[in-house]
């Protein structure tokens, strides 16, 4: 741990209001303006300035230049393009969650060997497509050539970039550790799942996502909804969709098995499956079928199977009990009931409390 860490932690504690509450009135935000992929992003940073005797000027100062600020990418030029980030990054939130719920760290399974599949455009080469031309480098080469040949006239500096000057960005493979994870979310969207139930699922998945992503280099997510039939959807649809009809849970498990075998071979991925349902299945036989799928096909490849039963008024499905009976002592299976929002924290703890 570096020497600065205790000071940094202390500052964070003050920002979070855990200690020295009287300092909060001096706490403000400083904005840095950065560029990410052509967009101006604002990076708010908590800033605490202790009071001192100071002059109260209204923005007076001394500068140098043409007094024209067109060169700078200052605030206020085009406010519509600002992306304001939260005071806390998801990473920090996950850390808070971990501290609050006392969650154990996840120990990624699998090999620590190096994989070099991904690449980034960090290299420079003499050849390449025009779309990847590195203007600054090319210009500098041309400038060097012109100056070296003695043709440079400082009063009329015209630099023509020739073919030999051109430089191009090229991708460089990046060596990445293999600790990747895929999270499969399965949600029951049958008629009995109301908006409130989906909200519970949405909140819970956010935190599950945050915590698991924190432990892996790359995390993929797969969303499956099911009523009597199952289908894969995107994140947005996952939370909005309102189907109706019966509930056949095994259909979702079948689909999950197919996706995992096709796209996420167990040797390469740390697999998580979280299933949210109100626990009412169409038939006993289907529930039995689910247990079979879990036991034979899913659990052997999963790091963790989590089941959260979001209970709607008065009804209480028996899927929870079935799972409890079958996998009581299986540490790959974590079960929880989520009757209301207050129960979310406890549910997260029981789903993630095993450090798997």
């Amino acid at each position, binding site marked *: 741990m*570096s*020497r*600065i860490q*205790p*000071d*940094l*932690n*202390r*500052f*964070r504690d*003050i920002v979070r209001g855990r*200690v*020295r509450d009287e*300092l909060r009135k*001096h706490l403000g935000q*400083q904005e*840095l*303006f*950065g*560029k*990410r992929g052509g967009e101006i*992003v604002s*990076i708010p*940073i*908590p*800033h*605490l300035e*202790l*009071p*001192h*005797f*100071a*002059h*109260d*000027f*209204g*923005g*007076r*100062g*001394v*500068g*140098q*230049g*043409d*007094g*024209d*600020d067109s*060169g*700078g990418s*200052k605030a*206020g030029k085009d406010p519509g393009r600002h992306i304001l980030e939260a005071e806390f990054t998801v990473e920090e939130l996950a850390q808070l969650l971990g501290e609050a719920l006392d969650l154990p760290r996840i120990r990624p399974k699998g090999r620590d060997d190096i994989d070099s599949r991904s690449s980034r455009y960090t290299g420079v080469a003499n050849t390449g497509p025009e779309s990847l031309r590195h203007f600054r480098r090319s210009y*500098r080469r041309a*400038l*060097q050539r012109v*100056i*070296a040949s003695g043709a440079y006239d400082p009063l009329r500096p015209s630099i023509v970039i020739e073919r030999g000057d051109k430089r191009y960005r090229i991708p460089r493979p990046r060596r990445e550790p293999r600790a990747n994870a895929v999270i499969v979310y399965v949600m029951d969207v049958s008629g009995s799942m109301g908006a409130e139930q989906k909200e519970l699922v949405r909140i819970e998945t956010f935190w599950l996502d945050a915590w698991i992503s924190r432990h892996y280099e790359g995390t993929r997510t797969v969303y499956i909804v099911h009523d009597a039939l199952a289908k894969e959807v995107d994140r947005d649809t996952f939370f909005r969709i309102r189907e109706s009809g019966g509930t056949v849970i095994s259909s979702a498990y079948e689909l999950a098995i197919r996706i995992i075998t096709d796209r996420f071979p167990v040797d390469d991925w740390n697999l998580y499956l979280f299933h949210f349902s109100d626990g009412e299945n169409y038939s006993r036989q289907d529930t039995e079928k689910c247990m079979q799928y879990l036991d034979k096909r899913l659990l052997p490849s999963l790091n963790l199977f989590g089941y959260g039963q979001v209970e709607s008024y008065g009804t209480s499905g028996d899927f929870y009990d079935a799972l409890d009976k079958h996998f009581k002592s299986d540490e790959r299976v974590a079960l929880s009931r989520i009757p209301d929002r207050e129960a979310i924290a406890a549910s997260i703890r029981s789903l993630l409390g095993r450090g798997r």
Partner: protein
Amino acid sequence: MRGRILSVELVRVQERIERIAAEQGLTFFPVVFEVVDYEQMNALAAYSGFPTRYPHYRFGMEYLQLSKSYEYGLHKIYEMVINNDPTYAYLLEGNAMLDQKLVMAHVYGHADFFRNNMYFAHTNRRMVDAMANHATRVRRYQERFGIEVVEKLIDACLSVEDLIDPTAVFLPAAPRVEAVPAEPDPDEAPGRMPAKAYLDRYVNPPAYLEEQRKRVEEEKEHSRRFPARPERDVLGFLLAHAPLANWERDIVGLIREEGYYFLPQRQSKVMNEGWASYWHSKIMTTHVLTDAEIIDYADHHSGTMATQPGRLNPYKLGLELFRDIERRWDTGQFGPEWDACESMAGRAQWDRQLGLGRAKIFEVRRVHCDATFLDEFLTPEFCQEQKLFASSEDPKTQRPVVSTRSFDEVKQALLFQMTNGGRPVIEIVDANYANRSELLLHHCHARVDLRQDWARDVLANLTLLWRRPVRIDTVREGKPVRLSHDGTAASEEAIA
């Protein structure tokens, strides 16, 4: 936090640049370079270059800012150097060799400035050790009295950290006990000369005697005041006279010591960076650069010298001013003859071929600080050439706009920024105010009012140290006003 020692290649470069710097007349303590990665560099920068500082959250805050802005590619610290014997400097790991050369040349400029500028003469050249000691002591107090108690005291001290006397270092140390003058005979009228009775009226005119009597009275009145003269070293005064526990006194003392150590760096930012830039430019372009490196060097150098809207770049201003001084003293463009010359053509062609430039800039770097440097050497021609301007906030758009390019106003604005580090001048005028041991401060008002909310908070912090009510006389919107804080609540009253 210590980084790695240099590679063989870097050692060779260092030896070479050090030799060139010495040949050019720079003198410095031994310079020790270390290579650090960017995380170490950010942490070091948060600690103002020192490997160890006392524990305090603001270093964490600085670090957070630096690392966030590094992450987003907004800045990169190439170099850092600390005023110490030996002079420590850090190089960023993974920088191109050209950058490392440039940084080294730049560092030798700073090292020479630290050693030779007279404002640095009093600084502790073993500050690395002193800072480590401070850290140990503060940690010990924290273990004994609790983190929060110690931190609150440090915060209170930091809030008045800048209330030290920038001129104090040039004054002889005050004697601990002031000599008490012999009591004059109370029967004898002051100022009376022995004279024969018939001449007495002429030798000792009654009006004169009355005047003398009043003067003595006034002096007596004055000496009852404490401190006898207004005191600008508020921290020093608190250290000597506030009712503090020993550990508290130690903390006030160490914050004050660090304040005095950093003071000359705040007083000479423009000169220091200008001097270092002058030398990196001179050393690189005349000795070190290979043909292949020149464009990359120019690219890097111009990046450092770039001016941004609304911000004064001390590197640029300092470098240009040093070059201007060198040129003027080389050509003899100074003194009464030059001042008297009013012909534009005459001025443009003025060249007495004195060649005094180099000697002059070495002298300047020895005896000046930013305020005197700019006061003495800023010329209207320079101001125009460098396109300096004063700005103010447009009340409508709340964006800064150029308010003037007039030489006098720009210079005045600049000097105001530089005087006392741009901070208001505050003195202790009475430590026994109303005969109730209350502390009375005085703000030497210079056109600009105090920021009121902060002033109140500072007073509150001072009551923590002084343990009695603290007041300050200032002026707000043209009217004299006294702000007070008694430790629980702030109040204010108009004063005559």
